[in-house]
């Protein structure tokens, strides 16, 4: 079983590093819309941790920052249906 799983996952496996841990000079700020947009989809959803590779700690901080930015109309809650 274990071997099987490994085989299946091998091609997709890529080691992800939390970019906030890697570079401590990066500060998550709700006012910095440009860098927050990097962690949201085109629709305005927050990109999950398993895809962005953030660590739990920084993903939590990031989520709060995105929510704050949404509240003050810097980021969209969602985009209008086209």
């Amino acid at each position, binding site marked *: 079983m274990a071997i099987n799983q490994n085989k299946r996952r091998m091609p997709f496996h890529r080691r992800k590093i939390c970019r906030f841990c890697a570079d401590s000079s990066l500060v998550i700020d*709700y*006012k910095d819309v440009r860098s927050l947009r990097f962690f949201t989809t085109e629709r305005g959803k927050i990109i999950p941790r398993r895809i962005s590779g953030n660590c739990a700690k920084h993903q939590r901080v990031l989520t709060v920052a995105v929510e*704050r930015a*949404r*509240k*003050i*109309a810097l*980021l*969209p*809650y969602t985009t209008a249906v086209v």
Partner: protein
Amino acid sequence: MRHYETLFIIKPNLSDDEYKNIVQKYNGILEKNKGVIIKTDLWGVQRLAYLVRKEEKGFYALLDYCGLSGLTAELERELKLDDRILNYQTIKIADKADPAELLRQIQERTAKSEPAATDESQGQPDPSAKMKEVPHGN
């Protein structure tokens, strides 16, 4: 004292003077309630991510200040009553902050950036220093 930051959106289509007056009004309210203003930042008219009171654009202004716990309640009450304010949000940055220390940090930062900016024209810092002294003399 606590360190707070309030970001608020003013209606678009007002004149520059009106924006300045509005921001000054809230700075006055902060000072009246024993708050210490650290920084005010005018971002200018920006596109909003979604419609707020049917407005597509808004003028963003950021107030950075220190104060006691009742201060934000008073400021937000005033912001709420003002028709020209579309939205506001206050964030607590730190529970314990020394306003003098924060002001000094900002001064140091501007002092560091100024020499780099005025490398080409070294005469600039002097006139600005004189300008500041004139109002005191009058």
